[in-house]
């Protein structure tokens, strides 16, 4: 646990030691706001909630989270620092969790910095703050799931561009799997339980549920199991590279 925290601390420092953190936070906050106001018609709806704000998070994450995740392992591999890291007295698991947590905390910070939206909606009306809190939690969990996928892909390559594209594609499919676009393709030939299974993998469905204020155990379980699964795969990939 101590080692995990030391690595998390170092990684977080690395984010803020480069322009990456500031660029990311500014763009994230600006885009979430812009989407909410201009595409989500925040004012025109005349409703005191943050629905138009949160509903664009999956799409933003699709672009921004793989950008954060791509460097996690690919950069270490490219710079050769992975050799340094993996010959320190830490386990592979500690390194993976430490790096993941740092990136997750970082996205959490960006998410917290969207608080002016929350203030705005509270000034304009009386929103259900419980729902807003649930939405924030849901958004954060979804970011974690994207991140775990990105981290796992990043361990496969030393090329950050490849890591980005592959991770974004996988995340895109996970988001889309609840939509008719994807389901329709399966419905024509696959048995219904497979279609249901694919639909249940959808980030979007779980996120919509949570952002309506319904934090259900299956949704929590869904996000956490995605995170655990991909981090575990991440560990296997990193270990595998040792033997390769």
């Amino acid at each position, binding site marked *: 646990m101590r*080692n995990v925290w*030391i*690595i998390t*601390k*170092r990684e977080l*420092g*690395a984010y803020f*030691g*480069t322009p990456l953190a500031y660029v990311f936070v500014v763009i994230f906050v600006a885009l979430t706001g812009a989407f909410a106001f201009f595409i989500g018609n925040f004012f025109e709806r005349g409703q005191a909630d943050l629905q138009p704000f949160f509903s664009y998070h999956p799409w933003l994450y699709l672009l921004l989270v793989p950008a954060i995740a791509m460097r996690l392992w690919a950069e270490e591999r490219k*710079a*050769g*620092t992975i*050799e*340094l890291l*993996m*010959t*320190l*007295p*830490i*386990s592979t698991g500690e390194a993976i969790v430490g790096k993941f947590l740092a990136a997750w905390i970082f996205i959490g910070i960006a998410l917290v910095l969207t608080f002016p939206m929350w203030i705005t909606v509270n000034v304009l009306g009386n929103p259900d703050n419980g729902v807003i809190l649930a939405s924030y939690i849901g958004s954060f969990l979804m970011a974690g799931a994207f991140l775990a996928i990105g981290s796992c892909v990043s361990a496969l390559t030393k090329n950050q561009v490849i890591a980005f594209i592959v991770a974004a594609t996988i995340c895109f499919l996970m988001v889309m799997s609840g939509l008719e676009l994807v389901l329709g393709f399966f419905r024509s030939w696959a048995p219904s339980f497979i279609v249901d299974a694919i639909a249940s993998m959808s980030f979007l469905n779980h996120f919509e549920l949570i952002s309506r204020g319904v934090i259900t155990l299956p949704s929590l379980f869904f996000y956490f199991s995605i995170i655990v699964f991909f981090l575990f795969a991440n560990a296997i990939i990193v270990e595998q590279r*040792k*033997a*390769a």
Partner: protein
Amino acid sequence: MAVLVEADRLRKSFGPILAVEDISLKVEKGEVLGFLGPNGAGKSTTMKMLTGFLEPDTGRARICGISVADRPKEAKVKLGYLPEGAPAYGDMTPRSFLNFIAEIRGFDGASKFAHVDAALARTGLESVATQRIETLSKGYKRRVGIAQAILHDPPVLIMDEPTDGLDPNQKHHVRGLITEMAKDKAIIVSTHILEEVEAVCTRAVVIDHGRIVADGTAEDLQRRMHYHNAVAVRVAAAEAERLAAALAVLAGVASVERAEAINGHIRLRALPKPGASIAADVGALLRDQSIVVEELLVERGKLDDVFREITTSSEGSRHA
């Protein structure tokens, strides 16, 4: 003496490429082992297996008797490792980077700062301790890597080309550091700079095509050289014939080689019979015959030549 590093029949291939075929070696406390070999001979791969970064296909590495494969964390505690190219996190400063290493190595509070300060001082990094590593010169970066490896004063130190890319002063400094630490550690240094072996190593292992082809002191290796203790004499071209004839009949001389004439001078080289020392005899001969000598030197057998001879001959025997 305690054996601190042990490689037992290490073998590693990357797909179809056999990088390390079969390497076994032991390094005892107080030894500085020079790991020599041409590029691609398997030096770095062997070191990566010793440090647990790569898993050997077969064979076993032990650090202080601890199996690297079975108890990696414990083995790595005993180890300081400078990977090839001295990678470090460029966005950190030497001080913050070493703080991170010290924390991972389990130092806290005052002892953390003491260790970091000591490592900075030993490697002469104080003046750049607060600059970002990516802005440092190659020499300083290398020293950051060395500082990181010696920070916890490990019993085993493995360094992949510690002086590569350093200027002569920096090389001297690093070699001094290695010699200073040598007596209570087992140190492995890979290099292809042969003077380094003479300067710091108590033992040299030459590897080629993933196998050990020579093992001994620098002196031992030189002795294997054909030109060891040969005497080279440069004289005016007119005198060369007479001198060559006289040299050939000296008791200790096995043969005489002659080079092309350059600017009216010819260089003759008298090769001794095995074990014979002919310098004094050649000197006496030159005096007796009153030959004017432009240049006279006893060849030690340059380690470079030894190296070339060992590594190319093993290639020859392999293809034969």
